[in-house]
């Protein structure tokens, strides 16, 4: 197992290289000129300004030269400088990553908790009304366009009912808690600022629910199926025959096994959530990597687009790795082999 993981880790740089290359090629598919986003259409015919911009952003180089430069810098951890924020892309990404991660983690939590709950409910009431309802609710989550659902809940819970705050991570007047982890919920607790914690949690509820609902469907389906598999397992019959409470049978025996396959898809879920985050962040003005990606795409901000896409691929690799490790830790048959 250790050996296997070591190989996995060793191969990662190669994969990253492949990822970066693909993204680079993709971003140069057609030379749609980002110039207009740099100097504005007002200066497009001003030869001096245009020339200066081309020189500064390396747009005069041939694509292979740009590629070589990019890769060279990438090895040093330099993802280039964004046209629009004028900062190193890496810094932008690192600044914005905590917002996305916080949102994604909470969404994952919501998705898994509700998904497992609905899955258990459905499996225990297999083919009864409650099963159908649970699966339907879950399926709606996978079928809802996240951006639309976001608008919907904002309209209802923010604009109409006023129960929850609107877009953003905190209220406009509030000051973000001092940066420790970048997770406002965690940082506020570390600073002992309870009201900020409550505030940041309130701001998380809508976007994280919208995002999390999307994975409830996947988790429900999986948990239900594997729980049904487990229910037909001998050891469940044995546990029942031994007089264990049904709750113990389900929660301690069957669920423990049924969750193993769920762990294997957490990586997939995470990637799925990152995808959803792109849209959710846009709707909720969430200052994360997703909204950064959208902005970059709109402005043809190549360095940012490439950077964020590489980050996406990287996140995917990492989560897969973590998934494998988590699976190994959770399953004694693998852990001890």
């Amino acid at each position: 197992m250790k050996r296997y993981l070591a190989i996995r880790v060793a191969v990662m740089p190669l994969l990253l290289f492949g990822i970066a290359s693909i993204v680079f090629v993709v971003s140069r598919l057609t030379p749609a000129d980002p110039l207009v986003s740099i100097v504005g259409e007002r200066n497009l015919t001003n030869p001096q300004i245009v020339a200066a911009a081309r020189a500064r952003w390396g747009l005069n180089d041939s694509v292979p030269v740009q590629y070589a430069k990019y890769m060279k810098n990438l090895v040093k951890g330099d993802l280039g400088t964004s046209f629009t924020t004028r900062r190193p892309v890496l810094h932008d990404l690192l600044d914005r990553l905590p917002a996305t991660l916080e949102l994604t983690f909470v969404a994952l939590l919501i998705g898994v908790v509700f998904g497992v709950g609905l899955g258990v409910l459905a499996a225990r009431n297999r083919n009864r009304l409650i099963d159908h309802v649970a699966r339907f609710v879950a399926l709606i989550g996978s079928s809802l366009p996240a951006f639309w659902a976001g608008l919907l809940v904002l309209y209802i819970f923010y604009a109409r009912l006023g129960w929850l705050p609107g877009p953003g991570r905190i209220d406009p007047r509030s000051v973000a808690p001092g940066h420790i982890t970048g997770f406002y919920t965690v940082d506020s607790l570390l600073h002992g600022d309870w009201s900020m914690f409550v505030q940041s949690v309130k701001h998380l509820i809508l976007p994280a629910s919208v995002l999390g609902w999307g994975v409830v469907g996947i988790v429900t389906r999986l948990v239900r199926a594997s729980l049904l598999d487990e229910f037909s397992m001998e050891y469940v019959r044995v546990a029942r025959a031994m007089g264990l409470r049904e709750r113990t049978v389900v929660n301690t025996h069957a669920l423990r096994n049924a969750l193993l396959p769920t762990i294997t898809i957490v990586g997939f879920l995470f990637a799925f959530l990152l995808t959803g985050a792109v849209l959710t962040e846009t709707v909720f003005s969430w200052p994360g990597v997703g909204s950064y990606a959208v902005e970059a795409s709109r402005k043809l901000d190549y360095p940012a687009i490439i950077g964020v896409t590489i980050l996406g691929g990287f996140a995917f690799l990492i989560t897969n790795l973590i998934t494998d490790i988590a699976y190994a830790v959770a399953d004694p048959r693998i852990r001890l082999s």
Partner: protein
Amino acid sequence: MSYVPMDSRRHVRRSGLLSLALAGSLMFAACGSSSKSGGTTTPTGSTVASGATAAASAAAGATTAGSTATGATTGAGAANSDKALVIARGMDVNSLDPSRSYCDTCQIFMTAVYETLIGLDASDNKTLVPRLATKWESNATQTEFTFTLDPKAKFADGTAVTSADVKFSWERLKALKAASSYLVSTISTIDTPDPETVKVTLSAPNSAFLAQVNASYLGIINSKLATANGATLDPATDKAETWFLSNSAGSGPFTLESYTSGSELRFKRNDAYWGTKAHFPEVIMKETPQAVTQRQQLEQGAVDIAMQISSDVAKGMAGADINVKQVKSFNYVYLALSQGAKGGEALTPDVRQAIRLALDYAGLVDVTVGGAGQMQASPIPNGFLGTDGLAAPKQDLAAAKALLAKAGVTSLTLDATFPSLNVYGVDFSTAMQKVQTDLKAVGINLTLNPVEISVWADKIGKDGIPVTMLYFAPDHTDSSQYVQYFGLVKDSQWLTWTKGTDEAAEDTLLAQAFAAPDSTSRAAVYNKLATDMINDQVIIPVVNPDLFLASRSNIKGMAYSACCNLVLADLSRG
């Protein structure tokens, strides 16, 4: 001014560009003015601050809309200026380096943090007033300008503002060749005979120069501080842009506290300010791209000001807690016709005039901004020098048909590729569809093709586009910018894009205007230019949208500044 659109999607996408353009707009005003107070008469006899007249009367036309009561909001708290001022805004910041920034928000930022030599009187939005410079004068040919700096002026770190700083700031602006550098492209040398005197020599007469000096992008940088942090006069070696994202080096009433792109821009009051200190200890600009969200947050008291409200969103807003001002702007959206474009050969002057006559202008104002806008005659917007007496455009279908008959055109199909933007609340698709409907009535069919601005830019640069749409917001308060951009004069943007022919007469008139010593004579020249440009039938203004300034009703000093968009130092909570 520029109003930024509200639709977040578009807004964001466009914002870079937009901002540029817009940015300019805001400033435009700078100019203005009849410089009574500011203008001293130079020894050579010319009037300083000749420029402008124009401007801004428009801004003065504010009307207050709304207020009836909604009460519901809890109110934002203490009714005094101790608490931070919060502004909801779709920010479009491209850079906070004074020599590189060029956007709407940048104008507000530059005005708050950096200072120009010449200011604009907030009460009339026209008069040039002393700021860092106590007086200024020009020679008769408008090629040499001399400024005397206020000895009291100090940067936020306490060092004095000297002529060396002015020289450094403007030379850097020119050398870095970033988006706003064209404002100083006519400067050939800057002399600093003593720390309080700046003498600028231009490469050609430029009566608009003082208006340009008023533009916020010409704010003065603390050269020692900036140099210490990597600022140079060479784009290849300059490393200061990143430093400027978290630091400032100005003499304004505020300093930069922090900036997080996509999230917020914070200003801190400069407590060592050499003039009258600002009311608010802190100003927070919150990234809020959607107009509806700006409205909600304003109504709930979560923010104090929202400036990017479209007419649809402004409807029904307001109440006792909220003021909504509708003000006239200098921004406009126009149709451009290119006979030189591929597929545009049929657009002869007669056909172009027929198109002009076929449009339902009042209908366009209704459709695009729900009536909250003005019609505009020439490419020089209403209120700028030279536009007095120009008649608003009118629809005349009979005349249009007659012209087309004369030109032998019975049915004509034209490519109308346009950037799918939403600017100043005007959705280009909406506007183009209305244009399409109007032209159909006289037998001209448009093939609408909305595209991304980068695609559009590519196409217009190569083949040109027979019928398209774009927007303009002024960079300063002088009319010359319109001639330079829209006129059929040498190197003008639209001359290039339409692949048209240079009109020598307009070049001559523009040169006259630049050399004209007083505003009266310049007004006459610009009036002639405006008429010429109307007759060119290349640029047809479609709508001049109004702006909506919304704020909590306890906010005092809300005004649209012709030069600076919103002057943070003028605001207070009553």
